[in-house]
């Protein structure tokens, strides 16, 4: 591990144990005799008390203790209570399990609302368009020593490196990719580039995630972009309406067609039936007629005359004067038309 203490002292033990050792040695020097008599043991106790008071520190469960003695790193401390040599030793407590997070392109205000920051968010795409990216970088401290001591202003460094990385990646994408299908790819590539940069700096940082929060066209053109989506919808709508029209028209037409055919069939059938009926009637009459022509003919005639003569008005004029008199006969009647079928001789 890179934070094993090194230096002239070799492997240094925890001073806590060392103190106990010293205390025991002092006790051993006075076998049998009363321990707390005299000024020397009291002085030792006072010194020990000060030691513990000034040198006590606790490492929280998500932290790691890094101890410097005279500016030199000598050991690390696991979570729990520890002692350091006051004034001489200095302790740093980086949170090594915490997922730290940096916002790029926006800030979340205290109210929880995300506000885009144009200078950070707007960047140029590969096809010379401009897009607004809002993203979050998540990282962990992977090496406490590197993180604490290798890079000055590590926080801003991570942020700048992220900005450089995302712009590098976006510079090779088309705007439509960035807005739609390319997001996962962009996140991955940015993470790779960013990790490479930070490893080159030996920053002791592990990037756990790059997450795109929001990818939008710049505000100035946002409505134009939205309109494209609307236009796509409009296109769908027009086509669907046309299909609807078709789905209405064709079945109706088929119905109409079927009806025409049915009516024709019905007509034909009726026609034939009627013909058959009339023909049969005639044939029956004919059959009768053929038995006794004269009688039948007379019968039919008389029946007909009976039927007609009763109703019609008859004027019978001698043929010799008919032509001279006819024009003067009052043939027309109120509201009634003159007889059809009259014969002028």
């Amino acid at each position: 591990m890179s934070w094993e203490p090194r230096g002239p002292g070799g492997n240094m033990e925890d001073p806590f144990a060392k103190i106990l050792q010293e205390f025991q040695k002092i006790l051993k020097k006075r076998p049998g005799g009363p321990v707390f008599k005299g000024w020397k043991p009291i002085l030792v106790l006072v010194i020990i008390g000060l030691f513990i008071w000034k040198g006590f520190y606790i490492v929280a469960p998500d932290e790691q203790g890094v101890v410097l003695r005279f500016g030199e790193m000598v050991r690390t401390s696991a979570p729990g209570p520890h002692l350091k040599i006051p004034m001489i030793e200095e302790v740093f407590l980086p949170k090594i399990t915490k997922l730290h997070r940096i916002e790029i392109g926006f800030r979340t205000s205290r109210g929880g609302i995300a506000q885009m920051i144009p200078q950070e968010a707007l960047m140029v795409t590969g096809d010379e368009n401009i897009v607004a990216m809002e993203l979050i970088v998540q990282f962990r401290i992977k090496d406490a020593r590197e993180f604490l001591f290798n890079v000055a202003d590590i926080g801003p460094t991570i942020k700048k490196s992220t900005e450089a990385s995302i712009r590098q990646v976006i510079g090779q994408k088309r705007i439509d990719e960035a807005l739609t299908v390319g997001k996962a790819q962009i996140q991955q590539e940015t993470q790779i580039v960013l990790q490479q940069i930070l490893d080159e700096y030996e920053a002791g940082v592990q990037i756990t995630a790059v997450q795109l929060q929001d990818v939008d066209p710049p505000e100035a053109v946002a409505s134009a972009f939205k309109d494209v989506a609307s236009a796509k919808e409009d296109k769908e709508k027009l086509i669907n309406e046309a299909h609807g029209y078709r789905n209405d028209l064709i079945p109706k037409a088929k119905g109409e067609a079927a009806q025409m055919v049915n009516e024709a069939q019905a007509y034909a059938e009726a026609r034939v039936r009627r013909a058959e009926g009339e023909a049969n009637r005639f044939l029956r009459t004919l059959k009768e007629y053929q038995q006794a022509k004269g009688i039948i003919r007379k019968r039919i005639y008389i029946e007909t005359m009976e039927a007609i003569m009763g109703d019609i008005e008859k004027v019978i004029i001698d043929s010799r004067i008919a032509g001279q008199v006819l024009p003067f006969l009052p043939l027309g009647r109120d509201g009634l038309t003159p007889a059809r079928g009259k014969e002028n001789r």
Partner: protein
Amino acid sequence: MSKQGLIGIIVVSILILLIIGASPFFVVDIIETAIVVQLGKPVRTITEPGLKFKIPFIQEVIRFDKRLLDYDSEPQDVVTGDKKTLVIDNFAKWRIVEPLTFYEAFRTERTARARLDDIIYSELRVDLGQHDLSEIISQNRSEIMAKVTKRANEKALEYGIEILDVRIKRADLPEQNEKAVFRRMQAERGREARRYRSEGAEEAQKIRSQAEKEKEILLAEAYKTQQELMGEGDAKAFRIYAEAYGQDAEFFEFVRSMEAYKKVLGKNTRVVLTPDSEFFKFIQQDK
């Protein structure tokens, strides 16, 4: 003098020195390098941290940050190879590797930063001026940055500085160009939107007229079938009539005429007849 006595004198001397503030001790922190200067002349370079000794009063310690330092200047305009302007915001990571050389060149970090500005910016301008705008933004970005880093580093070495990385944080278009780009983007999207809509209208039109054509064909076919069927029906009916009436055409004429008279001559008919009219033909004959 006894050994204990000697130790006592040393301890007391050190305490006195500490009290008057002329400590012989100094600490070099883990993030520092230091040089010890004696009467204005550097005599020693210290690169490892820890507790160190110096001669009080005569020697003084000058410290330098050992870490990777940040250089970030204001965004500046750079002209590209194809005569376009980019606003470049770059940063660089650098270290002091030779404290002595650095000290002799600069004395302070602030002076150093001014020199860094020169080195880095001039190198950046030269390299970017050799590439087109699109190369800088996309294809050759990392290559260009690597080249600038290398060249700048070569220049910086003589000052005891290592330039580890020069990176373009932002490469943006100047404001007017930005506006022009926005206009172009809008126009492009406008064309796209129009295209979708007209495609939709065209497609819809096709579907509709296709449907109407089909309808017409359906109805025309049906009409044809209708006429055929009716014709067949008529023909069949005629055949039946012909067959039946043909058996005695004259009788048919007689019977049919009788029926016609029945129908035609009804209540409100006035008939003017002469005795020798066709109508009475039968009367007279059948007297």
